[in-house]
C-alpha cells in the first residue's frame, strides 16, 4: 500500500513529506528529480518510476508533483486516484491547492492526510466525512479559535462512515432547501486541414449542489436516457434501478458533488460548434509568411458562442507576427512562440478574423511542422449531445425544495490542424 507521500514543487524542492509506515528517506526522490530533469515539460514526467527498492507514482497538478512511494505490488491506478483525491480535498479545504496554501495550513494538511490513509489503506476520502472530522479553516474560525482556544478537529463521530450511506452526513438542516444540477459538456475534437472531423467526442458531467434537510431520496429522469450508454456514477446512485428503468435514484451527499460523468463517443454523431477558416503559408527562401484565420459558429442550435480564445504554438522559425484582428485582442510571445487571440463572443453577422504577416528567421529553411490551432469557447444553455433532464422528484422528506437545472457546453481539447 502507499508508504509515503512527498510534495515537490516545480523547482525540485520537497516541501512536505508524510509517511504512513516506516520513514522512507528523502533520497528516494532523487530518481524522481532525474526524471524531472530529463523531461522537457513538467507534464512529461512519467507517472510511474521504478527505483531499486521502491516505486514512485506521481501526479502533476497545480504546479505541484504529488509523489507517492510504494514498496510492493499495488494497483497504480489506485495510487493515482488517491493522489487526485488528495489534491481535490486540498482544493476543497483551502480554495486553491498551491505550495503557499499547503504551507499555510500545514497542520490541517497533516491531519487530513492522517485521516485519509491509515497504514497505506484509504480511510476517509469523502469530503462530507472529512469535514465532519476536521473543519475546514475559515477566516472567522481562525479568529474564533485564537480567541477561544477551540480547535479545527470536530468532536463528533464520523457517523456517516458507519451507515449504509457513508457519503452523507447525518442531521443536515437548512432553512432554504435547494437542489441545483449543472449539465456540463466538453467537446474534444480534432479537425483536419480540410475542415472534416478526424475525431470528436463529448465528455459530459452532471454536477450537483444539493442543500437539503434530512435524508432526501431523489430521482432524476432524462428525456433521452438512451444517449447515456457509457456512464460512471457517484456511489450513491442505485445501479439496478438505472439498469432497469434508466432513472437515477439516489440519496445525495450533502453539498457539491459529481453525480455522474458520461461519454458520447465518436460513433454517435457529435455536433461541431465552431469552424475555422485558415490560410497559413511559408514560402521557401522568403522571410515573410502569410497568416489568416476566421472563426465562425457551426452547429450551435442558435445559441451564442462566447468566451472564444484561440491559441497556437507557432514554429520556432517565426520571429514575430504582425497581425490585425477585427475583434478582441491578440498577443504573440516571441520567446515561447505562442500566439493567443482573445476573441470573446462571436457575432454571426460579422465573423471575427485575424490576419497579417509573419516574419521568419532569415536563412532558416521553411518550417517542417504546421501550427495546430487550439480553440476554447463556451455555449450557455446548451448540452451539445442533446441530453435533457425530464424531471426531478424528491421522496422521504416533507418540505418542497427549490430545483434548478443549468446546461453548458465548453470546448475541451478542440484542435484544428492546418
Amino acid at each position, binding site marked *: 500500500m502507499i508508504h509515503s507521500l512527498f510534495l515537490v514543487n516545480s523547482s525540485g524542492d520537497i516541501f512536505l513529506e508524510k509517511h504512513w509506515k516506516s520513514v522512507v528517506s528523502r533520497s528516494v526522490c532523487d530518481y524522481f528529480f532525474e526524471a524531472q530533469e530529463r523531461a522537457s515539460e513538467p507534464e512529461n514526467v512519467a507517472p510511474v518510476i521504478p527505483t531499486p527498492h521502491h516505486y514512485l507514482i506521481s*501526479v502533476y497538478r497545480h504546479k505541484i508533483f504529488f509523489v507517492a512511494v510504494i514498496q510492493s505490488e499495488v494497483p497504480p491506478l489506485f495510487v493515482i486516484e488517491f493522489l487526485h483525491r488528495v489534491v481535490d480535498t486540498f482544493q476543497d479545504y483551502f480554495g486553491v491547492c498551491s505550495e503557499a496554501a499547503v504551507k499555510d495550513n500545514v497542520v490541517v494538511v497533516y491531519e487530513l492526510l492522517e485521516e485519509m490513509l491509515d497504514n497505506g489503506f484509504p480511510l476517509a476520502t469523502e469530503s462530507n466525512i472529512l469535514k465532519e472530522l476536521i473543519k475546514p479553516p475559515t477566516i472567522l474560525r481562525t479568529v474564533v479559535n485564537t480567541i477561544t482556544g477551540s*480547535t479545527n478537529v470536530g468532536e463528533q463521530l464520523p457517523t456517516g462512515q458507519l451507515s449504509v450511506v457513508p457519503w452523507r452526513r447525518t442531521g443536515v438542516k437548512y432553512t432554504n432547501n435547494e437542489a441545483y444540477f449543472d449539465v456540463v459538456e466538453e467537446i474534444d475534437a480534432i479537425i483536419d486541414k480540410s475542415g472534416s472531423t478526424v475525431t470528436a467526442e463529448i465528455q459530459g458531467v452532471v454536477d450537483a449542489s444539493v442543500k437539503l434537510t434530512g435524508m432526501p431520496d431523489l430521482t432524476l429522469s432524462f428525456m433521452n436516457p438512451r444517449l447515456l450508454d457509457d456512464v460512471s456514477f457517484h456511489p450513491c446512485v442505485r445501479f439496478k434501478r438505472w439498469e432497469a428503468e434508466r432513472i437515477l435514484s439516489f440519496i445525495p451527499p450533502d453539498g457539491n458533488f459529481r453525480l455522474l460523468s458520461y461519454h458520447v463517443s465518436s460513433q454517435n454523431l457529435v455536433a461541431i460548434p465552431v469552424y475555422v477558416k485558415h490560410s497559413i503559408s511559408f514560402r521557401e527562401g522568403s522571410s515573410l509568411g502569410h497568416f489568416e484565420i476566421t472563426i465562425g459558429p457551426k452547429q450551435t442550435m442558435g445559441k451564442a458562442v462566447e468566451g472564444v480564445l484561440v491559441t497556437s504554438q507557432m514554429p520556432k522559425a517565426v520571429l514575430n507576427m504582425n497581425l490585425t484582428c477585427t475583434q478582441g485582442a491578440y498577443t504573440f510571445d516571441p520567446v515561447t512562440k505562442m500566439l493567443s487571440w482573445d476573441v470573446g463572443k462571436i457575432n454571426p453577422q460579422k465573423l471575427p478574423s485575424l490576419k497579417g504577416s509573419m516574419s521568419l528567421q532569415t536563412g532558416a529553411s521553411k518550417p517542417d511542422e504546421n501550427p495546430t490551432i487550439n480553440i476554447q469557447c463556451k455555449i450557455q444553455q446548451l448540452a451539445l449531445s442533446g441530453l435533457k433532464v425530464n424531471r426531478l422528484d424528491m421522496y422521504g422528506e416533507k418540505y418542497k425544495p427549490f430545483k434548478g437545472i443549468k446546461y453548458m457546453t465548453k470546448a475541451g481539447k478542440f484542435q484544428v490542424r492546418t
Partner: protein
Amino acid sequence: MTDSKYFTTTKKGEIFELKAELNSDKKEKKKEAVKKVIASMTVGKDVSALFPDVVNCMQTDNLELKKLVYLYLMNYAKSQPDMAIMAVNTFVKDCEDPNPLIRALAVRTMGCIRVDKITEYLCEPLRKCLKDEDPYVRKTAAVCVAKLHDINAQLVEDQGFLDTLKDLISDSNPMVVANAVAALSEIAESHPNSNLLDLNPQSINKLLTALNECTEWGQIFILDCLANYTPRDDRESQSICERVTPRLSHANSAVVLSAVKVLMKFMEMLPKDLDYYGTLLKKLAPPLVTLLSAEPELQYVALRNINLIVQKRPEILKHEMKVFFVKYNDPIYVKLEKLDIMIRLASQANIAQVLAELKEYATEVDVDFVRKAVRAIGRCAIKVEQSAERCVSTLLDLIQTKVNYVVQEAIVVIKDIFRKYPNKYESVIATLCENLDSLDEPEARAAMIWIVGEYAERIDNADELLESFLEGFHDESTQVQLQLLTAIVKLFLKKPTETQELVQQVLSLATQDSDNPDLRDRGYIYWRLLSTDPVAAKEVVLAEKPLISEETDLIEPTLLDELICHIGTLASVYHKPPNAFVEGSRGVQHKRLPPRTGSNESPESPELAQPAAAQPADQPPAVIPSQGDLLGDLLNLDLGPPTSGGTPAITSAMQMGAMDLLGGGLDSLLGGDLGGSPAIGAGSRSCSYAVLPQCPSRGWSRDLFDLGSGVGMPAGSYVVPKTVWLPAMKAKGLEISGTFARRMGTIQMDVTFTNKAMQIMTDFAIQFNRNSFGLSPAAPLQLATPLSPNQTIEVSLPLSTVGPVMKMDPLNNLQVAVKNNIDVFYFSSLYPINILFVEDGKMERQVFLATWKDIPSDNEAQFQIKDCHLNSDAVSNKLQSNNIFTIAKRNVEGQDMLYQSMKLTNGIWILAELRIQPGSPNFTLSLKCRAPEISQFVLQSYEAMLKN
C-alpha cells in the same frame, strides 16, 4: 494568521523555547507549541529532543491536541523506544474509552508505533477491538493486524490474530469485510504459499455482497481478491461476472480496471458460443474508452493495460480506433502508448485513417514521437499487406522532407519492408541512395548498407557506395562494420570481377585491424568460405531469408496470459511478470488464466490444457542452466535433419565451413569436460519430482493427465504421465513435454512439441548427452510438417541403448538437446528405470536362490510401499506386464511373499522380495542387486506401477 508562521522560527534556542511552552499551564499555549513542533517535524527538522514534553501533553480531553501528539508519537517513537513506553498506559486507557472514535484512534495509532516493546502491550487491546461492537473500531483493528504483522509477524501468528481476521470476512458490515480482505491480502503477500485467503463459493458470495455496499477503495481490494479465485465451472464464472459488471460504471478508474481484470480472467472460462460472452465483450469497450478521457497519469496506466487487452482480445476495441488518435498536447508518455495501440488495432478496414494520422504525427515537433510515428508507418506496411504500397509512398514523401531524423527512421523501416515483400518496391532504392550522405545514426547506416548489399546487382555504383563507407571503417559502430562486411561479401558474390580488391580490403580490415571478436570471426568465416568453396559461400551468404513476422513487439502468449491476470497492477504497466521485479521476489505465484470448461473446443491458449499449469510454480522443470558444459554436444549435434524445405544443403555447407575453420582443436579442448558438472546435478535434482506420480488431490489437472497419456498406449505397461521438460518461456516459444515408455520390447520417448511462438518452427533435431545406460535415439527425429504457431505435434522416438555411457547423477538423468531453426535448447529429464527392464528377465528358481545368497547382504535394501490396495495376484499381474517376473509365491505366517526378478538392458539383474500382508495397505520390498545404487530407482518404479 496561518500556519506558515511555524516555518519561520529557525533561530537558535528554538527547542528550548518550545520546551518551555510545552510545559506551560495554559492549554492554548500548549497546543500552539505542539503545532509548532509538528510543523518543524514536517519539514524534516529534528525535534525528537522534545519527546518527554510532548508525551506529557497526551493525557488531555482535547481531541485535536491528542491527535497532534499521536502524530508526533508515530514519527519519533522508533528513535526513543524507552520513552515511548511512557505512552502505553494512555493508549490502553483510550482503547477502553466509551467513544468509539477514541478507541479506534488509539488502536490505529498504537499500530503505527513501530517499537517491539509496545507491540506486546498492543495485543490485548487489539484483541478486544477486533471484537468491538462498533464496526468503525473493528475495521480499524483489521488494518492494525496488518500493521502489527509488518512489525512482528511471529507475534501475530502466535496470538491467533490471523484467524480472527479470517472470521471478519463474514462480518455483517461491508466496510469491515473490505478492510479484512485488504489486510489479509497484504499479509498474504509476504506468505505466498499460505492459505490465508482461502476462497470458496461461500466466502465468494460474502465478498460479492460486500462489494455492492463498501467504499470505492474497499471495492478495489475485494475485486483484486476475487481475481485470485478460480470458479468451479462456467456457470459460477458467469454468475460472478454478472455481479461484477456494474462496477464498470464506477467513477473511480481503479475500480473499473480491477473489474476489467476479473472479467477478462473469468471470461476465459465461458464458452464462446454463449450469448452472455458476446454481451460481456460489448460491455467492456465503453469503460476502457472512458478511462482515456481522465487525467494523463490515469490514461497512461489505462493505455498500458489496454495494450495487453488488445493483444489478448482484439475484438473488444476494434471499432474504437479513433479514441487512440493523438492530441498534440498529450504528454509524451501518453502519445507513445497511443501510437503503439494504434498499430495493434490497424487493419485493412481502418488503415487509410491510421496512415493519414501517422503522416500527420511525422510532422510534429517532438523528435522521439516523430521517430516512432515513422516506424509505425513501416509496421503498418508489414502488418496490412494491402496497405504496403501506400505506406511506402508515404515514407517516400517523408524522405523528401529531408528532415534528418525522419529520413533515417524511414530508411530503417524500409529495410524491413524489403524483407517482408522482396522484389516489389526496389524502385525506391534510387531515392534512398540520394540520402546516403545525411545518415549519421548507426542503425540507419547499417540499414542502408544492408539494402545496398542485398540489391547490389541492381545498383550500378554499389561498389562505389560501399567503398565510401569503407574509408572510415574503424570509426563506425560494430553494427555498421558487421553489416558492411556482409554487404561487401554479397557484392563480391554477385559481381566477382570488379570487386575483388574491395572484398580483400574489407576482409583484412575486419580480421587484421579489428579488436572486435565478432567482427574478426565473421571475417575469418567469410574468408575461409570464399577461399575454400565459393559455390558453397554463395549458397550460404545469399541464402533465401526466412520471412519476418507480421507483428513486432508481441508479448509471448504464456506471458500475456499471466499479465492478463495482473491487469491494473505494476506488472501490467511494465509488461513483466511480478517475480521479475517485485522486491525480493518472495516466490510470487504465477497466475494463470482458468481453462475454458463446458465445450470441447480446443482452448485458445494451448498451454491451458498442459499439465504445466498444475505444477507448483516454485519448482520449474529443470532446464540445464549452463550451456557451456554441453558445448561439446552442440558441436556434435547433427545439424542436417531430414526435413523438407530448401535449406539443408546450406546448413551443411555452413557446417563444413565451420568445421574446417575450427580444425580438430576445439573438440579436444572441450572433450574432457562434458556434463556431470555440479550445475547440471543441481538442475536435474530439482526436477526429480517430475517422474513421481502426481498426487491425486490435484483434481482437474489429473484428468487432463489421464486424457493425455491414455491415448494409443497398450494396456498393462505403465507409462508415467507426460510432464513439461522445457517450458516455452525458456525456449523462445517451443514447449516440450514428454514421457518414456516401453512398448513391444523397444524403449520409446513420447514427445509433444508445442509452438507458442509467433513464427513457424522447422528443422528439428535431437541429441542426447552421454548417460548411465547409453540411451540414444535409434532414428532421427521426424516431424512430418513444420510446426506452425499454436500447433502441437506428438512424436514417438524409438531409443536404443547402445550409445556412449557415462554415469549420471541421479542415475536416471538424461540430458537432451533439441535444435530447431531458431536455436538449440537444452533440458534434462528423468526416465523411469522400468523402461530398461527387458522381456527375458525371468530367472530360474535355482539360479534365483543361488544369486540371492551370493549377493552380500550389504547390498540389500528394504523399503516400505504404503497405501497400496491390491492383493498379491493383482500385484503379480501388474508387475508382470512391466517385465518384473514373479518366480515364486509363498505364504509365511499369513503373509504373501513374492519373489521377483528383472533384468536391465545392460545385463544387470535385480532380485526382489515383496511381502504382502492381506488386509494391510503397506507392503515391504527388499531388493538385492550387485549395483545397489539402482535400488531406489527400482523402488520408484514399483511405487509408480502399483499405484496406477
